[in-house]
Protein backbone atom coordinates (compact mmCIF):
# COMPACT_ATOMS: atom_id res chain seq x y z
CA UNK A 1 0.00 0.00 0.00
CA UNK A 2 1.58 3.23 -1.11
CA UNK A 3 -1.06 5.74 0.01
CA UNK A 4 -0.61 8.65 2.36
CA UNK A 5 -1.45 8.65 6.03
CA UNK A 6 -3.55 11.26 7.80
CA UNK A 7 -1.96 12.88 10.86
CA UNK A 8 -3.72 15.10 13.33
CA UNK A 9 -1.44 16.31 16.09
CA UNK A 10 -2.48 18.51 18.99
CA UNK A 11 -5.39 20.01 17.03
CA UNK A 12 -7.59 22.51 18.86
CA UNK A 13 -10.54 24.47 17.54
CA UNK A 14 -12.00 27.22 19.68
CA UNK A 15 -15.34 28.85 18.81
CA UNK A 16 -16.00 31.88 21.00
CA UNK A 17 -14.22 30.31 23.95
CA UNK A 18 -15.81 26.89 23.41
CA UNK A 19 -13.24 24.17 22.71
CA UNK A 20 -14.83 22.03 20.00
CA UNK A 21 -11.54 20.16 19.61
CA UNK A 22 -9.05 19.99 22.44
CA UNK A 23 -5.53 18.83 21.65
CA UNK A 24 -6.81 16.04 19.39
CA UNK A 25 -4.26 13.62 17.96
CA UNK A 26 -5.07 10.85 15.54
CA UNK A 27 -3.25 8.85 12.87
CA UNK A 28 -5.06 6.97 10.11
CA UNK A 29 -2.76 4.63 8.19
CA UNK A 30 -3.06 4.18 4.42
CA UNK A 31 -5.79 1.65 3.62
CA UNK A 32 -7.15 1.65 7.14
CA UNK A 33 -10.86 1.67 7.97
CA UNK A 34 -11.37 3.60 11.18
CA UNK A 35 -14.61 4.16 13.06
CA UNK A 36 -14.94 7.29 15.19
CA UNK A 37 -17.65 7.35 17.83
CA UNK A 38 -18.55 9.69 20.64
CA UNK A 39 -21.50 11.43 22.23
CA UNK A 40 -23.08 14.54 20.67
CA UNK A 41 -20.73 17.50 20.86
CA UNK A 42 -17.64 15.30 21.13
CA UNK A 43 -16.17 17.08 18.10
CA UNK A 44 -16.65 14.42 15.42
CA UNK A 45 -18.05 16.73 12.76
CA UNK A 46 -15.61 19.52 13.69
CA UNK A 47 -12.79 17.03 13.14
CA UNK A 48 -14.13 16.35 9.62
CA UNK A 49 -14.44 20.10 9.03
CA UNK A 50 -10.80 20.61 9.99
CA UNK A 51 -9.55 17.83 7.72
CA UNK A 52 -11.56 19.07 4.71
CA UNK A 53 -10.65 22.73 5.12
CA UNK A 54 -14.05 24.03 6.16
CA UNK A 55 -12.74 25.06 9.59
CA UNK A 56 -9.24 26.33 10.36
CA UNK A 57 -7.76 24.87 13.55
CA UNK A 58 -6.78 27.32 16.27
CA UNK A 59 -3.69 25.24 17.00
CA UNK A 60 -2.08 21.99 15.90
CA UNK A 61 -0.90 20.16 12.81
CA UNK A 62 -3.07 18.49 10.17
CA UNK A 63 -1.16 16.64 7.47
CA UNK A 64 -2.03 14.28 4.67
CA UNK A 65 1.23 12.60 3.72
CA UNK A 66 3.57 15.57 3.44
CA UNK A 67 0.90 18.15 2.70
CA UNK A 68 -0.17 20.65 5.33
CA UNK A 69 -3.97 20.71 5.07
CA UNK A 70 -4.42 23.79 7.27
CA UNK A 71 -3.19 26.00 4.40
CA UNK A 72 -5.62 24.71 1.75
CA UNK A 73 -9.26 25.48 0.92
CA UNK A 74 -12.00 22.89 0.35
CA UNK A 75 -11.62 22.42 -3.42
CA UNK A 76 -7.82 22.00 -3.15
CA UNK A 77 -8.16 19.42 -0.39
CA UNK A 78 -10.79 17.56 -2.39
CA UNK A 79 -8.52 17.56 -5.46
CA UNK A 80 -5.70 16.27 -3.26
CA UNK A 81 -7.67 13.07 -2.76
CA UNK A 82 -9.81 13.54 0.32
CA UNK A 83 -13.51 12.96 -0.23
CA UNK A 84 -16.28 13.66 2.24
CA UNK A 85 -19.77 12.33 2.71
CA UNK A 86 -22.02 14.49 4.82
CA UNK A 87 -24.28 13.50 7.66
CA UNK A 88 -27.30 14.79 5.79
CA UNK A 89 -27.03 13.38 2.28
CA UNK A 90 -26.36 16.22 -0.14
CA UNK A 91 -26.67 15.30 -3.75
CA UNK A 92 -27.69 17.57 -6.61
CA UNK A 93 -31.45 17.03 -6.77
CA UNK A 94 -32.02 18.56 -10.21
CA UNK A 95 -29.38 16.37 -11.84
CA UNK A 96 -29.79 12.68 -12.58
CA UNK A 97 -27.88 9.95 -10.76
CA UNK A 98 -25.65 9.66 -13.81
CA UNK A 99 -24.97 13.40 -13.93
CA UNK A 100 -24.23 13.50 -10.20
CA UNK A 101 -21.62 10.80 -10.67
CA UNK A 102 -20.27 12.48 -13.79
CA UNK A 103 -19.61 15.66 -11.77
CA UNK A 104 -17.89 13.64 -9.06
CA UNK A 105 -15.75 11.66 -11.51
CA UNK A 106 -12.04 12.43 -11.26
CA UNK A 107 -11.34 14.95 -14.05
CA UNK A 108 -9.97 18.51 -14.41
CA UNK A 109 -12.21 20.86 -12.42
CA UNK A 110 -11.73 24.28 -14.08
CA UNK A 111 -14.52 26.07 -16.01
CA UNK A 112 -12.82 25.75 -19.40
CA UNK A 113 -12.06 22.07 -18.83
CA UNK A 114 -15.73 21.53 -17.95
CA UNK A 115 -16.89 23.31 -21.12
CA UNK A 116 -14.60 21.14 -23.22
CA UNK A 117 -15.42 17.93 -21.31
CA UNK A 118 -16.49 15.09 -23.50
CA UNK A 119 -17.86 11.93 -21.92
CA UNK A 120 -15.47 9.25 -23.13
CA UNK A 121 -16.40 5.58 -23.30
CA UNK A 122 -13.99 4.97 -20.46
CA UNK A 123 -15.65 7.57 -18.25
CA UNK A 124 -19.09 6.19 -19.13
CA UNK A 125 -17.97 2.68 -18.15
CA UNK A 126 -16.51 3.93 -14.90
CA UNK A 127 -19.77 5.74 -14.04
CA UNK A 128 -21.77 2.64 -14.94
CA UNK A 129 -19.50 0.55 -12.74
CA UNK A 130 -19.92 2.87 -9.74
CA UNK A 131 -23.68 3.02 -10.36
CA UNK A 132 -23.80 -0.73 -10.14
CA UNK A 133 -21.55 -0.88 -7.08
CA UNK A 134 -23.95 1.31 -5.13
CA UNK A 135 -26.98 -0.54 -6.51
CA UNK A 136 -28.53 2.34 -8.46
CA UNK A 137 -28.26 1.03 -12.02
CA UNK A 138 -32.03 1.02 -12.50
CA UNK A 139 -32.23 4.66 -11.36
CA UNK A 140 -29.33 6.02 -13.43
CA UNK A 141 -31.42 8.52 -15.39
CA UNK A 142 -33.76 9.55 -12.58
CA UNK A 143 -33.25 12.93 -10.94
CA UNK A 144 -31.50 12.48 -7.60
CA UNK A 145 -34.34 14.46 -6.01
CA UNK A 146 -36.77 11.55 -6.26
CA UNK A 147 -34.53 8.91 -4.67
CA UNK A 148 -35.32 7.43 -1.25
CA UNK A 149 -33.22 8.43 1.74
CA UNK A 150 -31.12 5.26 1.62
CA UNK A 151 -30.57 5.59 -2.13
CA UNK A 152 -29.41 9.16 -1.68
CA UNK A 153 -26.87 7.98 0.89
CA UNK A 154 -25.62 5.39 -1.59
CA UNK A 155 -25.48 7.91 -4.39
CA UNK A 156 -23.32 10.05 -2.17
CA UNK A 157 -21.04 7.13 -1.44
CA UNK A 158 -20.96 6.46 -5.19
CA UNK A 159 -19.95 10.09 -5.76
CA UNK A 160 -17.10 9.56 -3.30
CA UNK A 161 -16.00 6.46 -5.22
CA UNK A 162 -16.19 8.27 -8.55
CA UNK A 163 -13.97 10.99 -7.09
CA UNK A 164 -11.44 8.21 -6.55
CA UNK A 165 -10.06 9.65 -3.31
CA UNK A 166 -7.26 8.19 -1.20
CA UNK A 167 -9.09 9.02 1.98
CA UNK A 168 -12.86 8.98 2.49
CA UNK A 169 -14.51 10.73 5.40
CA UNK A 170 -17.97 9.33 5.95
CA UNK A 171 -20.29 11.06 8.42
CA UNK A 172 -23.11 8.90 9.86
CA UNK A 173 -23.75 6.85 6.72
CA UNK A 174 -26.52 4.69 8.19
CA UNK A 175 -28.59 7.28 10.06
CA UNK A 176 -32.22 6.62 9.15
CA UNK A 177 -31.50 3.44 7.19
CA UNK A 178 -33.34 0.14 7.49
CA UNK A 179 -31.44 -2.89 8.82
CA UNK A 180 -30.98 -4.33 5.35
CA UNK A 181 -29.70 -1.00 4.04
CA UNK A 182 -27.34 -0.72 7.02
CA UNK A 183 -25.90 -4.14 6.33
CA UNK A 184 -25.44 -3.34 2.65
CA UNK A 185 -23.68 -0.09 3.57
CA UNK A 186 -21.30 -1.81 6.01
CA UNK A 187 -20.33 -4.33 3.33
CA UNK A 188 -19.82 -1.49 0.86
CA UNK A 189 -17.48 0.41 3.21
CA UNK A 190 -15.46 -2.67 4.12
CA UNK A 191 -15.06 -3.32 0.39
CA UNK A 192 -13.84 0.23 -0.21
CA UNK A 193 -11.22 0.18 2.56
CA UNK A 194 -7.98 -1.58 1.75
CA UNK A 195 -7.47 0.28 -1.50
CA UNK A 196 -8.20 3.56 0.30
CA UNK A 197 -8.38 4.84 3.85
CA UNK A 198 -11.84 5.35 5.28
CA UNK A 199 -12.85 7.24 8.41
CA UNK A 200 -16.44 6.58 9.47
CA UNK A 201 -18.16 8.70 12.09
CA UNK A 202 -21.14 6.83 13.51
CA UNK A 203 -23.54 6.68 16.44
CA UNK A 204 -24.82 3.20 15.68
CA UNK A 205 -22.66 0.78 17.68
CA UNK A 206 -24.08 -2.30 15.96
CA UNK A 207 -22.93 -0.84 12.67
CA UNK A 208 -19.46 -0.12 14.10
CA UNK A 209 -19.31 -3.69 15.35
CA UNK A 210 -20.27 -4.91 11.88
CA UNK A 211 -17.34 -2.98 10.45
CA UNK A 212 -15.09 -4.89 12.86
CA UNK A 213 -12.15 -2.49 12.76
CA UNK A 214 -10.23 -0.13 15.03
CA UNK A 215 -12.42 2.34 16.92
CA UNK A 216 -11.57 5.80 18.26
CA UNK A 217 -13.80 7.27 20.95
CA UNK A 218 -13.94 11.07 21.11
CA UNK A 219 -15.09 12.99 24.15
CA UNK A 220 -15.07 16.76 24.65
CA UNK A 221 -12.82 17.29 21.69
CA UNK A 222 -10.07 14.78 22.41
CA UNK A 223 -9.43 11.05 22.13
CA UNK A 224 -10.79 9.17 25.12
CA UNK A 225 -9.98 5.63 24.06
CA UNK A 226 -8.78 3.75 21.02
CA UNK A 227 -8.72 0.05 20.09
CA UNK A 228 -10.99 -2.76 19.06
CA UNK A 229 -14.72 -2.42 19.67
CA UNK A 230 -14.48 -4.89 22.58
CA UNK A 231 -11.59 -2.96 24.07
CA UNK A 232 -13.39 0.38 24.01
CA UNK A 233 -16.68 -1.10 25.17
CA UNK A 234 -14.91 -2.41 28.26
CA UNK A 235 -12.91 0.75 28.92
CA UNK A 236 -14.31 2.17 32.19
CA UNK A 237 -13.88 5.79 31.02
CA UNK A 238 -15.86 5.08 27.86
CA UNK A 239 -18.58 3.34 29.85
CA UNK A 240 -18.81 6.32 32.14
CA UNK A 241 -19.16 9.06 29.51
CA UNK A 242 -20.89 7.30 26.68
CA UNK A 243 -21.94 3.73 26.73
CA UNK A 244 -23.05 3.53 30.34
CA UNK A 245 -25.71 6.15 30.07
Amino acid at each position, binding site marked *: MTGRALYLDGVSVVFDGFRALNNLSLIVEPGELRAVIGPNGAGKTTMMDVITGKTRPTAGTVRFGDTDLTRLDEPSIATLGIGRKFQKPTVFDQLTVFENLELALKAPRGPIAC*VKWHLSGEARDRIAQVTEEVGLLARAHDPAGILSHGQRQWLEIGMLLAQDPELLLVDEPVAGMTDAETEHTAAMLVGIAGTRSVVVVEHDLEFVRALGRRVTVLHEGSVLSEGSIDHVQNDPRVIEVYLGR
Partner: protein
Amino acid sequence: MSVALSAPPPSRLRLGLRAGLGVAVLLLAALPTLNALPADHALHVSDFIVSVTGKWICYAILALSLDLAWGYAGILSLGHGAFFALGGYAMGMHLMRLIGPRGAYGHPVLPDFMVFLGYTDLPWFWQGFQYFPYAMLMVLLVPGALALVVGFLAFRSRITGVYLSILTQAMTYALMLAFFRNDMGFGGNNGFTDFKELLGMPLGTPAARAMLFYASLVALVGSFLICAALTRTKYGRVLTAIRDAESRARFLGYDTTQHKLFAFVLSAMLAGLAGALYVPQVGIINPGEFSPGNSIEAVIWVAVGGRGTLAGAVLGAFSVNALKTWLTSAAPDLWLFVLGGLFVAVTLFLPRGLIGLFDRLRRRRAS
Protein backbone atom coordinates in the same frame (compact mmCIF):
# COMPACT_ATOMS: atom_id res chain seq x y z
CA MET B 1 -16.70 -5.47 -15.19
CA SER B 2 -18.53 -3.46 -17.74
CA VAL B 3 -22.14 -2.40 -17.54
CA ALA B 4 -24.04 -0.75 -20.34
CA LEU B 5 -26.06 2.35 -19.56
CA SER B 6 -28.68 3.38 -22.09
CA ALA B 7 -29.04 7.05 -22.99
CA PRO B 8 -31.99 8.95 -21.49
CA PRO B 9 -35.01 9.46 -23.79
CA PRO B 10 -35.16 12.87 -25.55
CA SER B 11 -37.68 15.31 -24.14
CA ARG B 12 -40.65 16.06 -26.40
CA LEU B 13 -41.16 19.42 -24.75
CA ARG B 14 -37.70 20.44 -25.84
CA LEU B 15 -38.40 19.54 -29.48
CA GLY B 16 -41.68 21.46 -29.45
CA LEU B 17 -39.98 24.41 -27.86
CA ARG B 18 -37.26 24.46 -30.49
CA ALA B 19 -39.78 24.41 -33.33
CA GLY B 20 -41.71 27.25 -31.68
CA LEU B 21 -38.55 29.32 -31.32
CA GLY B 22 -37.63 28.79 -34.97
CA VAL B 23 -41.06 30.01 -36.11
CA ALA B 24 -40.83 33.04 -33.79
CA VAL B 25 -37.43 34.03 -35.20
CA LEU B 26 -38.75 33.76 -38.79
CA LEU B 27 -41.77 35.90 -37.91
CA LEU B 28 -39.53 38.52 -36.32
CA ALA B 29 -37.19 38.47 -39.31
CA ALA B 30 -40.14 39.28 -41.59
CA LEU B 31 -41.06 42.49 -39.72
CA PRO B 32 -38.72 44.97 -41.51
CA THR B 33 -39.79 43.52 -44.88
CA LEU B 34 -43.46 43.94 -44.00
CA ASN B 35 -42.65 47.48 -42.85
CA ALA B 36 -41.34 48.25 -46.37
CA LEU B 37 -44.73 47.36 -47.90
CA PRO B 38 -46.98 50.28 -48.92
CA ALA B 39 -48.90 51.73 -45.94
CA ASP B 40 -52.31 50.59 -47.26
CA HIS B 41 -51.19 46.99 -47.75
CA ALA B 42 -52.97 44.48 -45.51
CA LEU B 43 -49.71 43.10 -44.16
CA HIS B 44 -48.03 46.48 -43.60
CA VAL B 45 -46.34 46.84 -40.24
CA SER B 46 -45.87 50.33 -38.80
CA ASP B 47 -42.50 51.95 -38.01
CA PHE B 48 -43.52 51.92 -34.39
CA ILE B 49 -43.90 48.15 -34.30
CA VAL B 50 -40.49 47.65 -35.90
CA SER B 51 -38.67 50.03 -33.58
CA VAL B 52 -40.40 48.78 -30.46
CA THR B 53 -39.74 45.14 -31.40
CA GLY B 54 -36.09 46.00 -32.03
CA LYS B 55 -35.91 47.30 -28.44
CA TRP B 56 -37.55 44.16 -27.10
CA ILE B 57 -34.99 42.03 -28.88
CA CYS B 58 -32.26 43.89 -26.96
CA TYR B 59 -34.18 43.35 -23.74
CA ALA B 60 -34.42 39.66 -24.59
CA ILE B 61 -30.61 39.47 -24.86
CA LEU B 62 -30.37 41.15 -21.45
CA ALA B 63 -32.87 38.63 -20.05
CA LEU B 64 -30.86 35.79 -21.55
CA SER B 65 -27.68 37.05 -19.91
CA LEU B 66 -29.46 37.37 -16.57
CA ASP B 67 -30.85 33.87 -16.90
CA LEU B 68 -27.34 32.50 -17.34
CA ALA B 69 -26.23 34.17 -14.09
CA TRP B 70 -29.42 33.69 -12.08
CA GLY B 71 -31.20 30.69 -13.57
CA TYR B 72 -28.09 28.53 -13.92
CA ALA B 73 -25.40 29.85 -11.56
CA GLY B 74 -27.85 31.09 -8.91
CA ILE B 75 -26.38 34.60 -8.91
CA LEU B 76 -29.45 36.82 -8.48
CA SER B 77 -28.00 40.04 -9.86
CA LEU B 78 -30.13 43.11 -9.20
CA GLY B 79 -27.60 45.21 -11.09
CA HIS B 80 -27.52 43.71 -14.55
CA GLY B 81 -28.84 46.99 -15.91
CA ALA B 82 -25.38 48.42 -15.12
CA PHE B 83 -23.69 46.08 -17.61
CA PHE B 84 -26.38 46.89 -20.18
CA ALA B 85 -25.86 50.62 -19.61
CA LEU B 86 -22.04 50.35 -19.79
CA GLY B 87 -22.31 48.55 -23.13
CA GLY B 88 -24.71 51.29 -24.19
CA TYR B 89 -22.31 54.04 -23.10
CA ALA B 90 -19.43 52.41 -24.99
CA MET B 91 -21.56 52.38 -28.13
CA GLY B 92 -22.72 55.93 -27.33
CA MET B 93 -19.10 57.13 -27.17
CA HIS B 94 -18.49 55.67 -30.63
CA LEU B 95 -21.61 57.37 -32.00
CA MET B 96 -20.57 60.68 -30.38
CA ARG B 97 -17.11 60.52 -31.97
CA LEU B 98 -18.73 59.87 -35.36
CA ILE B 99 -20.72 63.13 -35.11
CA GLY B 100 -17.42 64.97 -35.65
CA PRO B 101 -17.83 68.58 -36.78
CA ARG B 102 -21.60 68.17 -37.31
CA GLY B 103 -22.31 69.04 -33.64
CA ALA B 104 -24.11 72.23 -32.60
CA TYR B 105 -20.77 73.88 -31.72
CA GLY B 106 -19.06 72.54 -34.81
CA HIS B 107 -15.91 71.46 -32.95
CA PRO B 108 -13.94 69.00 -35.14
CA VAL B 109 -13.28 66.50 -32.36
CA LEU B 110 -14.98 67.35 -29.08
CA PRO B 111 -18.64 66.35 -28.56
CA ASP B 112 -21.00 69.23 -27.82
CA PHE B 113 -21.23 68.66 -24.08
CA MET B 114 -17.43 68.85 -23.74
CA VAL B 115 -17.31 72.17 -25.58
CA PHE B 116 -20.14 73.40 -23.36
CA LEU B 117 -18.28 72.30 -20.21
CA GLY B 118 -15.07 73.99 -21.36
CA TYR B 119 -12.95 70.97 -22.26
CA THR B 120 -9.99 71.77 -24.50
CA ASP B 121 -8.75 68.24 -25.12
CA LEU B 122 -10.42 64.89 -25.48
CA PRO B 123 -10.06 62.92 -22.20
CA TRP B 124 -7.73 59.91 -22.51
CA PHE B 125 -10.54 57.37 -22.08
CA TRP B 126 -12.31 58.77 -25.14
CA GLN B 127 -9.33 57.97 -27.37
CA GLY B 128 -9.82 55.16 -29.83
CA PHE B 129 -13.62 55.23 -29.69
CA GLN B 130 -13.77 56.67 -33.21
CA TYR B 131 -12.84 53.16 -34.43
CA PHE B 132 -15.76 50.75 -34.63
CA PRO B 133 -13.79 47.56 -33.76
CA TYR B 134 -12.23 49.25 -30.71
CA ALA B 135 -15.64 50.49 -29.55
CA MET B 136 -17.13 47.00 -29.99
CA LEU B 137 -14.27 45.55 -27.96
CA MET B 138 -15.02 48.02 -25.18
CA VAL B 139 -18.72 47.12 -25.36
CA LEU B 140 -17.69 43.66 -24.18
CA LEU B 141 -14.58 44.41 -22.11
CA VAL B 142 -15.86 47.22 -19.90
CA PRO B 143 -18.90 45.34 -18.51
CA GLY B 144 -16.77 42.18 -18.39
CA ALA B 145 -14.05 43.90 -16.36
CA LEU B 146 -16.56 45.35 -13.89
CA ALA B 147 -18.15 41.92 -13.44
CA LEU B 148 -14.70 40.39 -12.98
CA VAL B 149 -13.74 42.79 -10.19
CA VAL B 150 -17.09 42.86 -8.38
CA GLY B 151 -17.62 39.13 -8.86
CA PHE B 152 -14.13 38.20 -7.71
CA LEU B 153 -14.40 40.20 -4.50
CA ALA B 154 -17.93 38.99 -3.75
CA PHE B 155 -17.54 35.31 -4.66
CA ARG B 156 -14.14 35.00 -2.97
CA SER B 157 -15.64 36.37 0.24
CA ARG B 158 -18.48 33.86 -0.22
CA ILE B 159 -21.15 36.55 -0.40
CA THR B 160 -24.28 34.84 -1.70
CA GLY B 161 -28.05 35.14 -1.72
CA VAL B 162 -29.69 38.36 -0.69
CA TYR B 163 -26.38 40.00 0.30
CA LEU B 164 -25.03 39.50 -3.19
CA SER B 165 -28.24 40.91 -4.66
CA ILE B 166 -27.97 44.01 -2.48
CA LEU B 167 -24.34 44.40 -3.47
CA THR B 168 -25.15 44.33 -7.20
CA GLN B 169 -28.02 46.76 -6.63
CA ALA B 170 -25.64 49.12 -4.83
CA MET B 171 -23.19 48.76 -7.73
CA THR B 172 -25.67 49.99 -10.34
CA TYR B 173 -26.92 52.75 -8.03
CA ALA B 174 -23.37 53.99 -7.38
CA LEU B 175 -22.67 54.00 -11.12
CA MET B 176 -25.86 55.95 -11.76
CA LEU B 177 -24.80 58.65 -9.27
CA ALA B 178 -21.30 58.71 -10.77
CA PHE B 179 -22.57 59.07 -14.34
CA PHE B 180 -24.88 61.91 -13.29
CA ARG B 181 -21.77 63.97 -12.48
CA ASN B 182 -20.69 66.30 -15.28
CA ASP B 183 -16.98 65.96 -14.50
CA MET B 184 -17.06 62.19 -15.12
CA GLY B 185 -16.72 63.07 -18.80
CA PHE B 186 -19.84 61.20 -19.94
CA GLY B 187 -22.22 64.06 -20.48
CA GLY B 188 -23.78 64.13 -16.97
CA ASN B 189 -27.53 63.76 -16.69
CA ASN B 190 -28.08 64.49 -20.40
CA GLY B 191 -25.93 61.57 -21.47
CA PHE B 192 -25.38 61.22 -25.20
CA THR B 193 -27.86 61.91 -28.00
CA ASP B 194 -28.18 63.50 -31.46
CA PHE B 195 -26.34 60.61 -33.05
CA LYS B 196 -25.81 60.97 -36.78
CA GLU B 197 -24.51 57.75 -38.25
CA LEU B 198 -23.19 54.26 -37.64
CA LEU B 199 -20.89 52.41 -40.04
CA GLY B 200 -21.52 55.10 -42.64
CA MET B 201 -25.28 54.59 -42.37
CA PRO B 202 -27.40 57.64 -41.44
CA LEU B 203 -29.44 56.78 -38.33
CA GLY B 204 -33.22 57.23 -38.17
CA THR B 205 -33.81 56.05 -41.74
CA PRO B 206 -35.86 52.89 -42.50
CA ALA B 207 -32.71 51.21 -43.87
CA ALA B 208 -30.78 51.89 -40.65
CA ARG B 209 -33.74 50.72 -38.57
CA ALA B 210 -33.92 47.47 -40.52
CA MET B 211 -30.15 46.91 -40.26
CA LEU B 212 -30.11 47.47 -36.51
CA PHE B 213 -33.15 45.25 -36.16
CA TYR B 214 -31.44 42.43 -38.05
CA ALA B 215 -28.19 42.94 -36.15
CA SER B 216 -30.09 42.62 -32.87
CA LEU B 217 -31.96 39.55 -34.06
CA VAL B 218 -28.71 37.88 -35.13
CA ALA B 219 -27.17 38.79 -31.76
CA LEU B 220 -30.18 37.32 -29.93
CA VAL B 221 -30.09 34.06 -31.88
CA GLY B 222 -26.30 33.88 -31.49
CA SER B 223 -26.42 34.56 -27.73
CA PHE B 224 -29.17 31.99 -27.34
CA LEU B 225 -27.20 29.35 -29.18
CA ILE B 226 -24.05 30.11 -27.17
CA CYS B 227 -25.93 29.93 -23.86
CA ALA B 228 -27.78 26.78 -24.92
CA ALA B 229 -24.55 25.05 -26.00
CA LEU B 230 -22.75 26.15 -22.84
CA THR B 231 -25.47 25.00 -20.45
CA ARG B 232 -25.61 21.61 -22.15
CA THR B 233 -21.93 20.94 -21.38
CA LYS B 234 -20.70 19.60 -18.07
CA TYR B 235 -20.00 23.24 -17.18
CA GLY B 236 -23.76 23.89 -17.26
CA ARG B 237 -24.31 21.02 -14.85
CA VAL B 238 -21.55 22.32 -12.58
CA LEU B 239 -23.37 25.68 -12.48
CA THR B 240 -26.62 23.93 -11.57
CA ALA B 241 -24.77 22.03 -8.86
CA ILE B 242 -23.31 25.26 -7.48
CA ARG B 243 -26.73 26.92 -7.58
CA ASP B 244 -28.37 24.11 -5.60
CA ALA B 245 -25.57 23.11 -3.18
CA GLU B 246 -22.50 25.28 -3.49
CA SER B 247 -20.68 23.87 -0.49
CA ARG B 248 -21.15 20.32 -1.77
CA ALA B 249 -19.66 21.32 -5.11
CA ARG B 250 -16.67 22.75 -3.27
CA PHE B 251 -16.12 19.45 -1.45
CA LEU B 252 -16.21 17.71 -4.81
CA GLY B 253 -13.18 19.81 -5.72
CA TYR B 254 -14.84 22.54 -7.82
CA ASP B 255 -13.46 26.01 -7.21
CA THR B 256 -16.89 27.61 -7.19
CA THR B 257 -15.45 31.14 -7.20
CA GLN B 258 -13.86 30.48 -10.60
CA HIS B 259 -16.95 28.86 -12.04
CA LYS B 260 -19.32 31.60 -10.90
CA LEU B 261 -16.92 34.27 -12.07
CA PHE B 262 -16.75 32.72 -15.55
CA ALA B 263 -20.56 32.74 -15.85
CA PHE B 264 -20.91 36.22 -14.35
CA VAL B 265 -18.34 37.80 -16.68
CA LEU B 266 -19.83 36.13 -19.75
CA SER B 267 -23.27 37.23 -18.65
CA ALA B 268 -22.09 40.83 -18.18
CA MET B 269 -20.59 40.83 -21.67
CA LEU B 270 -23.87 39.66 -23.20
CA ALA B 271 -25.70 42.38 -21.27
CA GLY B 272 -23.19 44.91 -22.62
CA LEU B 273 -23.84 43.71 -26.16
CA ALA B 274 -27.58 44.15 -25.60
CA GLY B 275 -27.02 47.72 -24.40
CA ALA B 276 -24.82 48.52 -27.40
CA LEU B 277 -27.52 47.37 -29.83
CA TYR B 278 -30.19 49.23 -27.89
CA VAL B 279 -28.61 52.70 -27.88
CA PRO B 280 -28.51 53.40 -31.64
CA GLN B 281 -32.11 52.20 -31.91
CA VAL B 282 -33.49 54.51 -29.22
CA GLY B 283 -31.04 57.31 -30.09
CA ILE B 284 -30.09 58.20 -26.52
CA ILE B 285 -28.20 56.93 -23.50
CA ASN B 286 -28.24 58.67 -20.12
CA PRO B 287 -27.57 57.71 -16.48
CA GLY B 288 -31.22 56.75 -16.05
CA GLU B 289 -30.29 53.43 -17.67
CA PHE B 290 -28.38 52.60 -14.49
CA SER B 291 -31.44 53.09 -12.28
CA PRO B 292 -32.01 50.07 -10.01
CA GLY B 293 -35.60 49.76 -11.27
CA ASN B 294 -34.37 48.70 -14.72
CA SER B 295 -32.37 45.83 -13.28
CA ILE B 296 -35.30 44.67 -11.18
CA GLU B 297 -37.58 44.74 -14.23
CA ALA B 298 -35.14 42.46 -16.04
CA VAL B 299 -35.34 40.01 -13.12
CA ILE B 300 -39.13 40.03 -13.45
CA TRP B 301 -38.92 39.22 -17.18
CA VAL B 302 -36.85 36.16 -16.40
CA ALA B 303 -39.07 35.10 -13.51
CA VAL B 304 -42.23 35.46 -15.63
CA GLY B 305 -40.78 33.46 -18.51
CA GLY B 306 -39.26 30.78 -16.28
CA ARG B 307 -35.69 30.93 -15.06
CA GLY B 308 -33.06 28.38 -15.90
CA THR B 309 -34.66 27.65 -19.29
CA LEU B 310 -33.14 30.34 -21.60
CA ALA B 311 -36.22 30.21 -23.86
CA GLY B 312 -38.24 31.36 -20.85
CA ALA B 313 -36.06 34.44 -20.42
CA VAL B 314 -36.63 35.47 -24.04
CA LEU B 315 -40.35 34.74 -23.81
CA GLY B 316 -40.60 36.70 -20.55
CA ALA B 317 -38.78 39.72 -21.97
CA PHE B 318 -41.12 39.87 -24.96
CA SER B 319 -44.37 39.24 -23.12
CA VAL B 320 -43.76 41.57 -20.15
CA ASN B 321 -42.57 44.35 -22.45
CA ALA B 322 -45.50 43.89 -24.80
CA LEU B 323 -47.78 44.21 -21.78
CA LYS B 324 -45.84 47.27 -20.65
CA THR B 325 -46.05 48.98 -24.05
CA TRP B 326 -49.78 48.38 -24.23
CA LEU B 327 -50.56 49.25 -20.61
CA THR B 328 -48.39 52.38 -20.35
CA SER B 329 -50.49 53.90 -23.13
CA ALA B 330 -53.85 52.37 -22.16
CA ALA B 331 -53.62 52.91 -18.39
CA PRO B 332 -50.28 54.51 -17.46
CA ASP B 333 -51.02 54.72 -13.71
CA LEU B 334 -51.65 51.00 -13.45
CA TRP B 335 -48.37 49.73 -14.88
CA LEU B 336 -46.26 49.61 -11.70
CA PHE B 337 -49.03 47.86 -9.79
CA VAL B 338 -49.41 45.32 -12.56
CA LEU B 339 -45.66 44.75 -12.68
CA GLY B 340 -45.46 44.21 -8.92
CA GLY B 341 -48.58 42.04 -8.97
CA LEU B 342 -47.16 40.01 -11.84
CA PHE B 343 -44.02 39.25 -9.85
CA VAL B 344 -45.97 38.20 -6.78
CA ALA B 345 -48.37 36.08 -8.85
CA VAL B 346 -45.59 34.33 -10.73
CA THR B 347 -43.67 33.63 -7.52
CA LEU B 348 -46.76 32.19 -5.85
CA PHE B 349 -48.49 30.35 -8.68
CA LEU B 350 -45.97 29.84 -11.46
CA PRO B 351 -42.62 29.15 -9.84
CA ARG B 352 -41.33 27.85 -13.17
CA GLY B 353 -42.87 30.72 -15.14
CA LEU B 354 -44.63 30.52 -18.49
CA ILE B 355 -42.39 27.66 -19.63
CA GLY B 356 -43.44 25.68 -16.56
CA LEU B 357 -47.08 26.45 -17.35
CA PHE B 358 -46.75 25.16 -20.94
CA ASP B 359 -45.04 22.09 -19.61
CA ARG B 360 -47.89 21.41 -17.20
CA LEU B 361 -50.59 21.97 -19.84
CA ARG B 362 -48.84 19.63 -22.24
CA ARG B 363 -48.59 16.92 -19.59
CA ARG B 364 -52.23 17.29 -18.70
CA ARG B 365 -53.19 16.89 -22.34
CA ALA B 366 -50.95 13.87 -22.69
CA SER B 367 -52.51 12.08 -19.72
